[in-house]
């Protein structure tokens, strides 16, 4: 499984298909997000931006991965590693890249808001900081999983027509963020607007996101093993 994931990951990285999503993520988190934040607002809104951007970015990375591998190349690897395990590896790879983006986003927010300095001067209580960071990590994870689930369900091998796949994925990403029944929406709200009434507790949102991902990955793996690419 490690060798398979390593192959898929290097296929994604060396095809340079991760760069455009990386630019989108950086623009979203540090450009758009940075512009709307003010010093002294705390870490929460920045972490909310970082989590929010992971939904479209992870969806894009996943689509990139799922369209990066020519069918015959996949066939050779599937003969060696099994079609189901190979497909799971292809779903793990963009998730690993997305997680790296998410962590970079959190670190970037911390640095950008000058938190290390503030902590040094006791302007921010360490306890609050840790709980913000914990919430940010959880929100990022939920958004990562939702982005993956959405893209896996709406891209090859499940949906093969590019027009339907791209429009569907874009629509589903918007829905996942805007609809207040979505775990991603709940996660972003929970870190960004601490005072607001939460739609879902973070734990429930995480379980829902895990369930979504499990279902989406299972369907994709099943289709990959049965249909030809």
């Amino acid at each position: 499984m490690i060798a398979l994931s390593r192959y898929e990951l290097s296929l994604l990285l060396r095809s340079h298909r991760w760069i455009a999503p990386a630019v989108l993520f950086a623009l979203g988190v540090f450009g758009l997000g940075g512009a709307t934040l003010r010093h002294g607002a705390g870490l929460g809104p920045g972490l909310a931006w970082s989590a929010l951007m992971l939904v479209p970015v992870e969806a894009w990375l996943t689509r990139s991965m799922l369209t990066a591998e020519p069918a015959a190349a996949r066939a050779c690897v599937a003969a060696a590693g099994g079609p189901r395990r190979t497909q799971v590896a292809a779903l793990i790879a963009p998730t690993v890249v997305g997680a790296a983006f998410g962590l970079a986003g959190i670190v970037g927010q911390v640095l950008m808001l000058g938190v290390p300095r503030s902590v040094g001067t006791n302007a921010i209580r360490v306890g609050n900081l840790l709980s913000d960071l914990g919430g940010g990590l959880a929100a990022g994870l939920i958004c990562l999983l939702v982005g993956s689930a959405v893209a896996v369900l709406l891209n090859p091998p499940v949906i093969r027509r590019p027009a339907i796949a791209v429009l569907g994925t874009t629509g589903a990403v918007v829905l996942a963020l805007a609809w207040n029944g979505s775990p991603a929406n709940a996660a972003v709200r929970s870190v960004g607007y601490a005072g607001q009434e939460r739609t879902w507790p973070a734990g429930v949102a995480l379980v829902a996101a895990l369930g979504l991902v499990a279902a989406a990955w299972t369907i994709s793996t099943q289709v990959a093993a049965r249909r030809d690419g």
Partner: protein
Amino acid sequence: MRLDNVAKRYGFRLPWVFRDVTLEIPAGALVRFEGKTGSGKSTLLRVIAGVSEPSRGNVTGRPVTGYVPERFPPALPFPARDYLSHIGRIHGLTGAALKSAIDACLDRLDGRELASVPLRHMSKGMSQKVAVAQALLPGGGLLVLDEAWTGLDAEAKTALDQAVAERLAHGDSVVYVDHEPGRLAHLEAERWRLDDGHASRVTGDDSAGGVTAADGSACGGAATDGSAGGGTAADGRQRSAPEDAP
């Protein structure tokens, strides 16, 4: 390994590509599939290689498998050695064993100089060597060749023939499809014919199927490659070449 009542179709409403295929591939066996274009040979090879799961039935006892697809795409962002390293690691090879296996496979096809060439810069012949090399990497088990000779130069074709013979002598199984009727004719093969979604064992020497007259091969010496075989069904073999052409 065994296939029991194996059937395949690519969707619930789509027709069966083949059905009720039951056959055994014993260790050390060479199995050839024949049939018209579109008869499902490639799909059956994919199921045998484990690339694709059957819609019905069971495939059991498949050993470690190397598979050469019909068309190997050069559009991967790796040099050949990196690509082969990935495939080798997926087969569980590491370190010095991995390196020597890659060198051996490339040397066998006279392709050592390909190691540093990016796959996307390769010609058809070059990338076909990589396709064959990756299938030979595990060094045993089952070898599935879907027109693997196409695009190889004469030396590499001979090298692949030799590799197949060595595998068989070693007790490994080889399953293949090739448009060239004389391919591997010097080796004893179990022949199966796919027709109308059903597989049937071909017995005897001259059952290439519905041959009535030999009116010469298309494009001149198409049969030169099969001269090694010297079989009795030369006419039939020549005739089936244009039938299989796209």
